């Protein structure tokens, strides 16, 4: 099964000269967020080699939905860099929207990065707002964003 088929319906990598350009899909915003996170870890390694042995909870908060997507991904990236953890399963458990803020809570599953087990692809430097797109329709959501590498 090719990579493209394996993640069909979840996310795909778009063409970009210098960086990694991702389009993530979901039936709901929460599902699209989960697939966006999976795509980021697939950028760094083979996500199907990340065992889901440790369960953790994370939160993200922002003033608008673009910043929320950014913060969600950045939170996970920072966990990798500071705690050496990789994740391959994500479940948004709580989604709150008020006029001032967006807040999410999620359960995430993964294991510590082990260079012998997890093939190295490219390290992600940062999430960016560049070409960020959030399309929300009745029964589907599309997210596009660029990771600086």
């Amino acid at each position, binding site marked *: 099964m090719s990579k493209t088929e394996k993640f069909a319906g979840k996310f795909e990598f778009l*063409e970009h*000269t210098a960086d990694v350009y991702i389009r993530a899909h979901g039936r709901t915003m929460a599902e699209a967020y989960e697939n966006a996170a999976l795509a980021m870890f697939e950028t760094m390694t083979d996500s199907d080699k990340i065992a889901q042995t440790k369960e953790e909870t994370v939160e993200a908060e922002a003033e608008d939905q673009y910043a929320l997507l950014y913060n969600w991904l950045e939170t996970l990236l*920072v966990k*990798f860099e500071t705690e050496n953890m990789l994740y391959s399963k994500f479940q948004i458990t709580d989604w709150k929207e008020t006029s001032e803020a967006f807040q999410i809570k999620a359960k995430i599953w993964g294991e510590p990065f082990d260079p012998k087990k997890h093939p190295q692809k*490219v*390290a992600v430097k940062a999430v960016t707002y560049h070409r960020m797109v959030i399309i929300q329709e009745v029964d589907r959501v599309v997210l596009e964003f660029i990771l600086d590498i």
Partner: protein
Amino acid sequence: MGESESRAAPERVPLEKVNDYTWQIPKYKPAMRVPGVIFANQALLEKMQTDRTLWQCSNVAQLPGIYKHAITLPDGHEGYGFPIGGVAATDYDNGVISPGGVGYDINCGVRLLSTTLTEAEIRPKLAPLAETIFRNVPSGLGSRRKDFTISSRDLESLVVEGVQWLINRGLGWAEDAEHCEEGGHMANANPDKVSSTAKSRGLTQIGTLGSGNHFLEIQKVDKIFNQKTAKAFGLTHEGQVTVMIHCGSRGYGHQVCSDYLRVMEHAVQKYKISLPDRELACAPGNSSEARDYIEAMACAVNYAFCNRQAIMHWVRQSFQQVYREDPEKFGLKLVYDVAHNIAKLETHNIDGIDKKVWVHRKGATRAFPPNHSAVPADYRSEGQPVLIPGSMGTSSWVLVGTQKAMELTFGSTAHGAGRMMSRSAAKRQYWGGDIKTALEKRGIVVRAASASVLAEEADPAYKNVDVVADVSDKVGIATKVARLVPIAVVKG
């Protein structure tokens, strides 16, 4: 894949040819305060027209307080808000400062070491040397050095004091600091303006190469174009071995950029700044938001100088381990260390008047002329060394700054090759193993943490760095001194 996706700019950007290497974007929109200027040959220009590079240049020309022109250099390509390979100078009092005009990898830069060895002398030891460097210098995903850890308190001192902090602890030689831009220490660094997230990312990554386009190469001098200047820089003959280190401020700098982009988004509203693109988020130079950014950025600049300093120390150590002799015996002197992503307060002559300006260099190298006080004393008669790394397996360049650069580009030139091909396209076309074999056939030893990075960084994925150096030389904003070619590559 073949995703249909609009790569082009939202509008056609008009261009007027000035000469074979200079094009102008006239003030075709009322919001443009100054024209744009592009330094490129026809082929490089055509590449820029396939994405948003020129449109972004026209946007930068709309920044409050911008002087003379928004500049795009020969290696220019689409970036975050600002093109990568660009320069913008804004007024000290009435201009703005923008983190997007510096980029995520603050003080991503290059350092070059000279040695007393020739290629023939190093050949027998080249493979073990590359292997030892690969082991001693952490590279690739999640890399960290287990036996070099620093405390949070150390990190505060390191980002304030710069490379001297490491030299004082035995990681370097006394003379290293003066051969770094800013003396390896940018003033006004204030760790109180850096978030705890940035600090925690920085703690684990000091002294690591990273991945992507960052690399460490053992090279040889392939051709000398300017004997006198090359000699002053310690490059004395063709075949001489050099070492080049290309990396930046790692997660520390990326987080500083990320944090302050958010601050600037609010500042744009607070100060009612009208911008053509949200990604240009900025604040007036005299605002607290801008000053905080500059103080935090200076910490990241110093972090990056220290990162390269620590890596250089372990390169010297690797020579010692392989040859079992003092590294001094092989020279291993620091030629220079330059920043490619930085904003600095400088004085430039604008229409006959010396003015203090914020020079944003994003994917651009400072190229100061002879007799400038910022050039190290022993190079002052020649001008500042300019280091332009190529892509993996291709040449890299040493150029020298000029007076022409002060007149045309606020003392700046290009910084590298710039990509031609997307990473996914490169991966479809090349396989890491083949790239490694091809390089090894050419006598280049390769040690890489990731095969997919090797494919993504394949040479044809990049513009030809020789052409970029050529345009810089022809325009006169930095002239050729020496071309270096790799004999061993270490990559993340």
